[in-house]
Protein backbone atom coordinates (compact mmCIF):
# COMPACT_ATOMS: atom_id res chain seq x y z
CA UNK A 1 0.00 0.00 0.00
CA UNK A 2 1.29 3.51 -0.80
CA UNK A 3 1.78 6.01 1.97
CA UNK A 4 -1.37 7.85 0.96
CA UNK A 5 -3.49 4.69 0.90
CA UNK A 6 -2.03 3.74 4.22
CA UNK A 7 -3.03 7.14 5.53
CA UNK A 8 -6.54 6.78 4.12
CA UNK A 9 -6.89 3.43 5.88
CA UNK A 10 -5.67 4.98 9.11
CA UNK A 11 -8.16 7.84 8.89
CA UNK A 12 -10.97 5.43 8.07
CA UNK A 13 -10.06 3.38 11.11
CA UNK A 14 -10.03 6.49 13.28
CA UNK A 15 -13.27 7.95 11.91
CA UNK A 16 -15.17 4.65 12.11
CA UNK A 17 -13.80 4.04 15.57
CA UNK A 18 -15.03 7.43 16.68
CA UNK A 19 -18.46 7.03 15.11
CA UNK A 20 -19.35 3.48 15.91
CA UNK A 21 -17.99 2.91 19.36
CA UNK A 22 -17.33 4.74 22.54
CA UNK A 23 -13.82 5.58 21.42
CA UNK A 24 -12.03 2.90 23.45
CA UNK A 25 -10.41 1.44 20.34
CA UNK A 26 -9.08 4.85 19.36
CA UNK A 27 -7.45 5.43 22.72
CA UNK A 28 -4.73 2.95 21.77
CA UNK A 29 -3.73 5.19 18.88
CA UNK A 30 -3.31 8.30 21.03
CA UNK A 31 -0.11 9.72 22.44
CA UNK A 32 0.79 8.56 25.91
CA UNK A 33 -1.23 10.16 28.66
CA UNK A 34 -4.30 10.83 26.50
CA UNK A 35 -7.59 10.15 28.20
CA UNK A 36 -10.45 8.09 26.79
CA UNK A 37 -12.88 10.69 28.20
CA UNK A 38 -11.51 13.18 25.68
CA UNK A 39 -12.50 10.94 22.79
CA UNK A 40 -15.89 10.36 24.38
CA UNK A 41 -16.39 14.13 24.81
CA UNK A 42 -15.49 14.71 21.17
CA UNK A 43 -17.89 12.01 19.92
CA UNK A 44 -20.75 13.14 22.15
CA UNK A 45 -20.13 16.77 21.29
CA UNK A 46 -20.39 16.01 17.58
CA UNK A 47 -23.56 13.98 18.08
CA UNK A 48 -25.14 16.76 20.12
CA UNK A 49 -24.33 19.34 17.46
CA UNK A 50 -25.88 17.17 14.78
CA UNK A 51 -28.90 16.52 16.96
CA UNK A 52 -29.33 20.24 17.64
CA UNK A 53 -29.25 21.10 13.96
CA UNK A 54 -31.74 18.39 13.02
CA UNK A 55 -34.03 19.23 15.91
CA UNK A 56 -34.17 22.89 14.90
CA UNK A 57 -34.68 21.98 11.27
CA UNK A 58 -37.49 19.53 12.03
CA UNK A 59 -39.27 21.79 14.50
CA UNK A 60 -42.50 21.82 12.50
CA UNK A 61 -42.55 18.02 12.15
CA UNK A 62 -42.33 17.69 15.92
CA UNK A 63 -45.90 19.00 16.08
CA UNK A 64 -47.11 15.98 14.16
CA UNK A 65 -44.77 13.22 15.27
CA UNK A 66 -44.65 12.77 18.98
CA UNK A 67 -41.27 11.76 20.32
CA UNK A 68 -39.45 12.75 17.16
CA UNK A 69 -36.36 13.59 19.25
CA UNK A 70 -36.08 9.91 20.18
CA UNK A 71 -36.19 8.94 16.50
CA UNK A 72 -33.59 11.56 15.60
CA UNK A 73 -31.25 10.23 18.27
CA UNK A 74 -31.67 6.64 17.02
CA UNK A 75 -31.06 7.80 13.47
CA UNK A 76 -27.85 9.62 14.45
CA UNK A 77 -26.53 6.52 16.18
CA UNK A 78 -27.09 4.22 13.23
CA UNK A 79 -26.60 6.52 10.22
CA UNK A 80 -23.29 8.40 10.11
CA UNK A 81 -23.25 11.80 8.49
CA UNK A 82 -22.30 11.65 4.82
CA UNK A 83 -19.44 13.83 3.54
CA UNK A 84 -20.38 17.49 2.99
CA UNK A 85 -23.97 16.84 4.11
CA UNK A 86 -25.90 20.00 4.91
CA UNK A 87 -28.74 19.89 7.40
CA UNK A 88 -31.20 19.64 4.47
CA UNK A 89 -29.40 16.56 3.17
CA UNK A 90 -29.16 15.00 6.61
CA UNK A 91 -32.84 15.73 7.34
CA UNK A 92 -33.89 14.17 4.03
CA UNK A 93 -31.95 11.02 4.90
CA UNK A 94 -33.68 11.05 8.26
CA UNK A 95 -37.08 11.10 6.55
CA UNK A 96 -36.13 8.08 4.45
CA UNK A 97 -34.90 6.29 7.57
CA UNK A 98 -38.06 7.25 9.49
CA UNK A 99 -40.36 5.90 6.81
CA UNK A 100 -38.46 2.62 6.75
CA UNK A 101 -38.22 2.29 10.49
CA UNK A 102 -41.51 3.53 11.87
CA UNK A 103 -45.06 2.72 10.82
CA UNK A 104 -46.31 6.27 10.31
CA UNK A 105 -49.95 7.22 10.53
CA UNK A 106 -51.42 8.92 7.44
CA UNK A 107 -51.45 12.24 9.34
CA UNK A 108 -47.77 11.84 10.12
CA UNK A 109 -47.06 11.00 6.50
CA UNK A 110 -48.50 14.39 5.57
CA UNK A 111 -45.96 16.06 7.86
CA UNK A 112 -43.23 14.07 6.12
CA UNK A 113 -44.57 15.10 2.72
CA UNK A 114 -44.56 18.74 3.75
CA UNK A 115 -41.02 18.56 5.11
CA UNK A 116 -39.84 16.76 2.01
CA UNK A 117 -41.38 19.45 -0.23
CA UNK A 118 -39.29 22.02 1.62
CA UNK A 119 -36.16 19.99 0.97
CA UNK A 120 -37.01 19.74 -2.72
CA UNK A 121 -37.44 23.51 -3.01
CA UNK A 122 -34.12 24.13 -1.27
CA UNK A 123 -32.44 21.68 -3.63
CA UNK A 124 -34.03 23.44 -6.61
CA UNK A 125 -32.82 26.82 -5.36
CA UNK A 126 -29.33 25.38 -4.90
CA UNK A 127 -29.10 23.71 -8.30
CA UNK A 128 -30.85 26.48 -10.27
CA UNK A 129 -29.59 29.48 -8.37
CA UNK A 130 -29.55 31.73 -11.43
CA UNK A 131 -33.27 31.07 -12.11
CA UNK A 132 -34.06 31.57 -8.43
CA UNK A 133 -32.26 34.92 -8.27
CA UNK A 134 -33.68 36.13 -11.59
CA UNK A 135 -37.25 35.39 -10.59
CA UNK A 136 -36.71 37.01 -7.20
CA UNK A 137 -35.44 40.20 -8.86
CA UNK A 138 -38.37 40.28 -11.24
CA UNK A 139 -40.83 39.62 -8.47
CA UNK A 140 -39.40 42.32 -6.19
CA UNK A 141 -39.48 44.84 -9.04
CA UNK A 142 -43.23 44.40 -9.59
CA UNK A 143 -45.46 47.24 -8.54
CA UNK A 144 -48.72 45.69 -7.28
CA UNK A 145 -50.66 48.66 -8.64
CA UNK A 146 -49.25 48.12 -12.10
CA UNK A 147 -49.88 44.41 -12.57
CA UNK A 148 -53.18 44.87 -14.37
CA UNK A 149 -51.69 47.28 -16.89
CA UNK A 150 -48.71 45.03 -17.43
CA UNK A 151 -50.87 41.96 -18.06
CA UNK A 152 -52.72 43.83 -20.77
CA UNK A 153 -49.46 44.85 -22.41
CA UNK A 154 -48.71 42.54 -25.35
CA UNK A 155 -44.98 42.78 -24.62
CA UNK A 156 -45.24 41.72 -20.97
CA UNK A 157 -44.36 38.13 -20.16
CA UNK A 158 -45.78 36.11 -17.33
CA UNK A 159 -43.18 34.03 -15.49
CA UNK A 160 -44.11 31.21 -13.14
CA UNK A 161 -42.00 31.07 -9.98
CA UNK A 162 -39.55 28.27 -10.86
CA UNK A 163 -38.97 27.42 -7.19
CA UNK A 164 -42.16 25.49 -6.64
CA UNK A 165 -43.06 21.86 -6.05
CA UNK A 166 -46.34 20.06 -5.67
CA UNK A 167 -47.10 17.77 -2.82
CA UNK A 168 -50.24 15.90 -1.81
CA UNK A 169 -51.87 15.79 1.61
CA UNK A 170 -53.95 12.69 2.26
CA UNK A 171 -55.49 13.85 5.52
CA UNK A 172 -56.83 17.15 6.80
CA UNK A 173 -54.26 17.51 9.56
CA UNK A 174 -52.47 20.35 7.77
CA UNK A 175 -55.46 21.75 5.92
CA UNK A 176 -57.27 23.68 8.68
CA UNK A 177 -60.59 22.46 7.32
CA UNK A 178 -60.12 24.42 4.11
CA UNK A 179 -60.45 21.44 1.77
CA UNK A 180 -61.31 17.79 1.63
CA UNK A 181 -58.32 15.49 1.19
CA UNK A 182 -56.58 14.28 -0.84
CA UNK A 183 -55.42 17.76 -1.87
CA UNK A 184 -52.53 18.92 -4.01
CA UNK A 185 -50.61 21.69 -2.32
CA UNK A 186 -48.13 24.05 -3.90
CA UNK A 187 -44.97 24.79 -1.91
CA UNK A 188 -42.65 27.52 -3.14
CA UNK A 189 -39.92 29.96 -2.22
CA UNK A 190 -40.59 33.69 -2.15
CA UNK A 191 -38.71 36.56 -0.51
CA UNK A 192 -36.22 34.03 0.93
CA UNK A 193 -39.01 32.11 2.68
CA UNK A 194 -40.74 28.82 2.12
CA UNK A 195 -44.46 29.28 1.52
CA UNK A 196 -47.40 27.01 0.90
CA UNK A 197 -50.68 27.60 -0.86
CA UNK A 198 -53.65 25.50 -1.77
CA UNK A 199 -55.40 26.05 -5.11
CA UNK A 200 -58.75 24.78 -6.26
CA UNK A 201 -58.84 22.42 -9.24
CA UNK A 202 -59.25 25.34 -11.64
CA UNK A 203 -56.21 27.12 -10.22
CA UNK A 204 -54.19 23.93 -10.16
CA UNK A 205 -54.94 23.35 -13.82
CA UNK A 206 -53.92 26.89 -14.74
CA UNK A 207 -50.63 26.71 -12.85
CA UNK A 208 -49.86 23.40 -14.53
CA UNK A 209 -50.62 24.99 -17.89
CA UNK A 210 -48.27 27.89 -17.26
CA UNK A 211 -45.61 25.47 -16.09
CA UNK A 212 -46.00 23.57 -19.36
CA UNK A 213 -46.03 26.62 -21.65
CA UNK A 214 -43.18 28.50 -19.99
CA UNK A 215 -43.05 32.31 -19.95
CA UNK A 216 -45.78 33.75 -22.19
CA UNK A 217 -47.98 36.79 -22.61
CA UNK A 218 -51.59 36.87 -21.46
CA UNK A 219 -52.79 36.64 -25.07
CA UNK A 220 -50.63 33.62 -25.80
CA UNK A 221 -51.79 31.85 -22.66
CA UNK A 222 -55.44 32.65 -23.35
CA UNK A 223 -55.14 31.29 -26.87
CA UNK A 224 -53.61 28.03 -25.66
CA UNK A 225 -55.59 27.47 -22.47
CA UNK A 226 -58.14 24.68 -22.22
CA UNK A 227 -59.15 25.75 -18.74
CA UNK A 228 -60.09 29.40 -18.95
CA UNK A 229 -60.62 32.48 -21.03
CA UNK A 230 -58.63 35.70 -21.03
CA UNK A 231 -60.61 37.45 -18.27
CA UNK A 232 -60.42 34.49 -15.90
CA UNK A 233 -56.70 34.10 -16.48
CA UNK A 234 -56.25 37.84 -15.94
CA UNK A 235 -58.00 37.62 -12.55
CA UNK A 236 -56.07 34.52 -11.61
CA UNK A 237 -52.74 36.14 -12.51
CA UNK A 238 -53.50 39.08 -10.24
CA UNK A 239 -53.90 36.71 -7.28
CA UNK A 240 -50.82 34.68 -8.20
CA UNK A 241 -48.73 37.84 -8.44
CA UNK A 242 -49.81 38.83 -4.91
CA UNK A 243 -48.67 35.42 -3.71
CA UNK A 244 -45.41 35.87 -5.67
CA UNK A 245 -46.12 32.72 -7.59
CA UNK A 246 -45.82 34.61 -10.85
CA UNK A 247 -43.93 37.69 -11.89
CA UNK A 248 -44.90 39.91 -14.79
CA UNK A 249 -42.12 41.82 -16.45
CA UNK A 250 -42.98 45.42 -17.03
CA UNK A 251 -45.19 45.51 -13.94
Amino acid at each position, binding site marked *: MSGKEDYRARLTHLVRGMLTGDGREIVRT*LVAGSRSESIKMFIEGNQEKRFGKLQAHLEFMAQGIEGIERYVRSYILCQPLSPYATVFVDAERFLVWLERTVMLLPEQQDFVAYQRAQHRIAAKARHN*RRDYVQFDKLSRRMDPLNIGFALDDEDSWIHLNPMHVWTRFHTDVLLDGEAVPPVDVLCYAALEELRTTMLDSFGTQLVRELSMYGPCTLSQWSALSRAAGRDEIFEFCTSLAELRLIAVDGA
Partner: protein
Amino acid sequence: MTPAIGLALREENRVVLDEPALSAVEVTFERANDDLRIENYVGGMDFDYVSVHALKLSPASADPPKTDYLDAVRRVADENGADSISDHLGFTRDGDDGVELGHFSVPPFTSVALDVTCENIEIIQNYFGERHFFIENIAYLFQFDGEMSEAEFLNAVLARTGCGWLLDVTNVYANALNHRYDAYEFIRSVMPSAGRVQIHLAGGFFEEDGIYIDSHSHPIPKEVWELYEFALMIGRGKVDAVFIERDQNFPDESGWRGEVRKARDLAERQSVTS
Protein backbone atom coordinates in the same frame (compact mmCIF):
# COMPACT_ATOMS: atom_id res chain seq x y z
CA MET B 1 0.11 48.99 9.54
CA THR B 2 -2.83 48.20 11.81
CA PRO B 3 -4.67 45.01 10.89
CA ALA B 4 -8.36 45.09 10.03
CA ILE B 5 -10.33 44.35 13.21
CA GLY B 6 -13.71 42.72 13.39
CA LEU B 7 -16.08 39.98 14.33
CA ALA B 8 -17.00 36.54 13.15
CA LEU B 9 -20.41 37.57 11.85
CA ARG B 10 -23.44 36.17 13.68
CA GLU B 11 -27.07 37.30 13.64
CA GLU B 12 -26.54 38.35 17.27
CA ASN B 13 -23.77 40.85 16.51
CA ARG B 14 -25.22 42.53 13.42
CA VAL B 15 -26.36 45.38 15.68
CA VAL B 16 -22.76 46.47 16.28
CA LEU B 17 -21.51 46.38 12.70
CA ASP B 18 -21.63 50.19 12.73
CA GLU B 19 -18.92 50.22 15.42
CA PRO B 20 -16.18 52.64 14.28
CA ALA B 21 -13.46 50.32 15.62
CA LEU B 22 -14.74 47.51 13.39
CA SER B 23 -13.40 47.28 9.85
CA ALA B 24 -13.61 43.56 9.07
CA VAL B 25 -15.95 40.59 9.27
CA GLU B 26 -15.50 36.89 8.96
CA VAL B 27 -18.34 35.04 7.24
CA THR B 28 -18.76 31.41 8.23
CA PHE B 29 -19.43 29.58 4.99
CA GLU B 30 -21.85 27.09 6.50
CA ARG B 31 -24.00 29.94 7.83
CA ALA B 32 -23.92 31.99 4.65
CA ASN B 33 -24.53 29.05 2.33
CA ASP B 34 -28.30 29.20 2.74
CA ASP B 35 -30.04 27.94 -0.39
CA LEU B 36 -32.86 30.45 -0.02
CA ARG B 37 -30.72 33.48 0.72
CA ILE B 38 -30.68 36.09 -2.02
CA GLU B 39 -28.93 39.04 -0.37
CA ASN B 40 -25.28 38.60 0.51
CA TYR B 41 -24.48 37.58 4.06
CA VAL B 42 -22.73 40.84 4.94
CA GLY B 43 -26.01 42.62 4.26
CA GLY B 44 -24.67 44.86 1.53
CA MET B 45 -22.28 46.60 3.93
CA ASP B 46 -18.74 47.59 3.00
CA PHE B 47 -15.80 46.43 5.09
CA ASP B 48 -12.07 46.88 4.62
CA TYR B 49 -11.59 43.14 4.88
CA VAL B 50 -13.89 40.13 4.55
CA SER B 51 -12.86 36.54 5.06
CA VAL B 52 -14.89 33.40 4.42
CA HIS B 53 -14.31 30.75 7.06
CA ALA B 54 -15.06 27.22 5.86
CA LEU B 55 -15.52 24.14 8.02
CA LYS B 56 -15.38 21.24 5.59
CA LEU B 57 -12.44 21.73 3.27
CA SER B 58 -10.85 19.14 5.54
CA PRO B 59 -7.28 19.57 4.22
CA ALA B 60 -5.95 16.65 6.26
CA SER B 61 -8.40 14.17 4.66
CA ALA B 62 -7.08 11.58 2.26
CA ASP B 63 -8.93 13.19 -0.66
CA PRO B 64 -8.93 16.86 -1.70
CA PRO B 65 -12.19 18.77 -1.28
CA LYS B 66 -14.82 18.17 -3.96
CA THR B 67 -15.28 20.75 -6.66
CA ASP B 68 -18.95 21.26 -5.70
CA TYR B 69 -17.91 22.35 -2.24
CA LEU B 70 -15.09 24.55 -3.56
CA ASP B 71 -17.54 26.12 -6.02
CA ALA B 72 -19.98 26.88 -3.24
CA VAL B 73 -17.27 28.44 -1.05
CA ARG B 74 -16.11 30.57 -3.97
CA ARG B 75 -19.68 31.67 -4.70
CA VAL B 76 -20.14 32.86 -1.11
CA ALA B 77 -16.72 34.56 -1.26
CA ASP B 78 -17.69 36.32 -4.50
CA GLU B 79 -21.09 37.38 -3.21
CA ASN B 80 -19.57 38.86 -0.07
CA GLY B 81 -16.53 40.46 -1.68
CA ALA B 82 -14.15 38.31 0.35
CA ASP B 83 -10.42 38.96 0.40
CA SER B 84 -9.52 35.57 1.82
CA ILE B 85 -10.73 32.09 2.70
CA SER B 86 -9.75 29.98 5.69
CA ASP B 87 -10.28 26.56 7.20
CA HIS B 88 -8.85 24.37 9.94
CA LEU B 89 -5.76 22.21 10.11
CA GLY B 90 -7.58 18.94 10.56
CA PHE B 91 -9.92 16.42 8.99
CA THR B 92 -13.69 16.15 9.22
CA ARG B 93 -13.98 12.99 7.09
CA ASP B 94 -11.73 10.14 6.10
CA GLY B 95 -12.23 10.45 2.33
CA ASP B 96 -14.78 11.07 -0.39
CA ASP B 97 -16.47 7.73 0.11
CA GLY B 98 -16.24 7.90 3.85
CA VAL B 99 -18.23 9.55 6.55
CA GLU B 100 -18.26 12.97 8.15
CA LEU B 101 -17.32 13.41 11.79
CA GLY B 102 -19.29 16.62 12.06
CA HIS B 103 -16.36 18.50 13.56
CA PHE B 104 -12.70 18.63 12.63
CA SER B 105 -10.22 16.43 14.38
CA VAL B 106 -6.51 17.07 14.70
CA PRO B 107 -4.54 14.95 12.17
CA PRO B 108 -1.85 12.49 13.19
CA PHE B 109 1.34 14.56 12.97
CA THR B 110 3.16 12.21 10.58
CA SER B 111 5.14 12.82 7.41
CA VAL B 112 2.46 11.15 5.27
CA ALA B 113 -0.25 13.31 6.82
CA LEU B 114 1.96 16.31 6.13
CA ASP B 115 2.38 15.37 2.46
CA VAL B 116 -1.34 14.79 2.00
CA THR B 117 -2.28 18.02 3.81
CA CYS B 118 0.17 20.08 1.75
CA GLU B 119 -1.10 18.52 -1.50
CA ASN B 120 -4.67 19.36 -0.55
CA ILE B 121 -3.82 22.91 0.48
CA GLU B 122 -2.04 23.45 -2.81
CA ILE B 123 -5.16 22.24 -4.66
CA ILE B 124 -7.29 24.60 -2.55
CA GLN B 125 -4.96 27.54 -3.18
CA ASN B 126 -4.84 26.89 -6.91
CA TYR B 127 -8.60 26.77 -6.97
CA PHE B 128 -9.06 30.06 -5.11
CA GLY B 129 -6.36 31.81 -7.13
CA GLU B 130 -5.74 35.39 -6.02
CA ARG B 131 -7.65 35.00 -2.79
CA HIS B 132 -5.32 34.15 0.08
CA PHE B 133 -5.95 30.93 1.93
CA PHE B 134 -5.28 30.69 5.68
CA ILE B 135 -5.00 27.54 7.78
CA GLU B 136 -6.11 27.65 11.40
CA ASN B 137 -4.47 25.81 14.28
CA ILE B 138 -7.25 23.98 16.12
CA ALA B 139 -7.93 23.20 19.77
CA TYR B 140 -7.82 19.48 20.50
CA LEU B 141 -8.44 17.37 23.56
CA PHE B 142 -6.56 14.32 22.26
CA GLN B 143 -3.64 13.76 19.95
CA PHE B 144 -2.85 10.75 17.78
CA ASP B 145 0.51 8.99 17.74
CA GLY B 146 2.79 10.87 15.39
CA GLU B 147 6.33 11.63 14.32
CA MET B 148 6.51 15.35 15.04
CA SER B 149 5.04 18.08 17.19
CA GLU B 150 2.13 20.27 16.14
CA ALA B 151 4.48 23.24 15.81
CA GLU B 152 6.79 21.27 13.49
CA PHE B 153 3.82 20.08 11.43
CA LEU B 154 2.34 23.56 11.15
CA ASN B 155 5.71 25.12 10.33
CA ALA B 156 6.20 22.63 7.51
CA VAL B 157 2.67 23.21 6.14
CA LEU B 158 3.19 26.99 6.07
CA ALA B 159 6.68 26.76 4.60
CA ARG B 160 5.80 24.22 1.89
CA THR B 161 2.49 25.68 0.73
CA GLY B 162 3.02 29.39 1.40
CA CYS B 163 -0.52 29.64 2.76
CA GLY B 164 -1.33 32.07 5.54
CA TRP B 165 -1.67 31.19 9.21
CA LEU B 166 -4.97 31.79 10.94
CA LEU B 167 -3.53 31.95 14.42
CA ASP B 168 -6.30 31.11 16.85
CA VAL B 169 -4.78 32.55 19.98
CA THR B 170 -7.37 30.94 22.23
CA ASN B 171 -6.71 27.53 20.70
CA VAL B 172 -3.00 27.91 21.42
CA TYR B 173 -3.85 28.98 24.96
CA ALA B 174 -6.19 26.00 25.45
CA ASN B 175 -3.80 23.45 23.96
CA ALA B 176 -0.87 24.82 25.95
CA LEU B 177 -2.85 24.45 29.17
CA ASN B 178 -4.36 21.08 28.34
CA HIS B 179 -1.25 19.50 26.86
CA ARG B 180 1.26 21.35 29.01
CA TYR B 181 3.43 23.33 26.65
CA ASP B 182 4.48 26.95 26.40
CA ALA B 183 1.97 28.98 24.38
CA TYR B 184 4.44 31.81 23.79
CA GLU B 185 7.08 29.42 22.54
CA PHE B 186 4.56 27.83 20.17
CA ILE B 187 3.70 31.17 18.57
CA ARG B 188 7.34 32.27 18.53
CA SER B 189 8.38 29.07 16.75
CA VAL B 190 5.65 29.12 14.07
CA MET B 191 5.41 32.82 13.25
CA PRO B 192 8.59 32.96 11.09
CA SER B 193 7.10 30.43 8.63
CA ALA B 194 3.95 32.46 8.09
CA GLY B 195 3.99 35.07 5.33
CA ARG B 196 0.54 36.35 6.25
CA VAL B 197 -1.44 36.01 9.44
CA GLN B 198 -5.02 36.34 10.59
CA ILE B 199 -5.92 36.11 14.28
CA HIS B 200 -8.89 34.60 16.11
CA LEU B 201 -9.76 35.56 19.68
CA ALA B 202 -12.42 33.94 21.86
CA GLY B 203 -13.19 32.91 25.41
CA GLY B 204 -13.95 29.51 26.88
CA PHE B 205 -14.22 27.97 30.32
CA PHE B 206 -12.50 25.50 32.64
CA GLU B 207 -14.03 22.08 33.25
CA GLU B 208 -13.97 20.79 36.81
CA ASP B 209 -10.88 18.72 36.04
CA GLY B 210 -8.98 21.81 34.90
CA ILE B 211 -9.36 21.23 31.14
CA TYR B 212 -9.91 24.46 29.23
CA ILE B 213 -12.69 24.25 26.65
CA ASP B 214 -12.58 26.67 23.73
CA SER B 215 -16.35 27.09 23.59
CA HIS B 216 -16.59 30.68 22.27
CA SER B 217 -18.96 31.29 25.14
CA HIS B 218 -17.23 33.73 27.46
CA PRO B 219 -15.38 37.04 27.32
CA ILE B 220 -11.81 36.82 26.08
CA PRO B 221 -9.68 36.11 29.17
CA LYS B 222 -6.76 38.27 30.27
CA GLU B 223 -4.23 35.56 29.39
CA VAL B 224 -5.50 35.43 25.80
CA TRP B 225 -5.31 39.22 25.47
CA GLU B 226 -1.69 39.04 26.65
CA LEU B 227 -0.91 36.28 24.19
CA TYR B 228 -2.58 38.36 21.47
CA GLU B 229 -0.31 41.29 22.25
CA PHE B 230 2.67 39.00 22.01
CA ALA B 231 1.47 37.61 18.65
CA LEU B 232 0.97 41.15 17.32
CA MET B 233 4.46 42.06 18.43
CA ILE B 234 6.28 39.15 16.83
CA GLY B 235 3.97 39.07 13.82
CA ARG B 236 4.34 42.79 13.21
CA GLY B 237 3.66 43.72 9.58
CA LYS B 238 2.19 40.29 8.80
CA VAL B 239 -1.22 40.44 10.43
CA ASP B 240 -3.97 41.17 7.90
CA ALA B 241 -7.01 40.83 10.13
CA VAL B 242 -8.24 39.98 13.63
CA PHE B 243 -11.62 38.38 14.30
CA ILE B 244 -13.41 37.89 17.61
CA GLU B 245 -15.53 34.73 17.78
CA ARG B 246 -18.55 34.21 20.02
CA ASP B 247 -21.15 31.46 19.58
CA GLN B 248 -22.91 31.15 22.94
CA ASN B 249 -23.90 33.32 25.91
CA PHE B 250 -23.93 36.34 23.66
CA PRO B 251 -22.95 39.63 25.31
CA ASP B 252 -24.94 42.82 25.15
CA GLU B 253 -24.03 45.56 22.70
CA SER B 254 -21.43 47.08 24.99
CA GLY B 255 -19.81 43.66 25.42
CA TRP B 256 -19.39 43.21 21.67
CA ARG B 257 -18.13 46.76 21.18
CA GLY B 258 -15.80 46.60 24.16
CA GLU B 259 -13.88 43.60 22.84
CA VAL B 260 -13.62 45.02 19.33
CA ARG B 261 -12.30 48.31 20.70
CA LYS B 262 -9.79 46.55 22.89
CA ALA B 263 -8.56 44.41 19.98
CA ARG B 264 -8.09 47.59 17.96
CA ASP B 265 -6.44 49.54 20.78
CA LEU B 266 -3.87 46.81 21.33
CA ALA B 267 -3.20 46.47 17.60
CA GLU B 268 -2.79 50.23 17.18
CA ARG B 269 -0.46 50.38 20.16
CA GLN B 270 1.71 47.73 18.53
CA SER B 271 1.69 49.64 15.24
CA VAL B 272 2.79 52.84 16.97
CA THR B 273 5.68 51.14 18.73
CA SER B 274 6.86 49.47 15.51
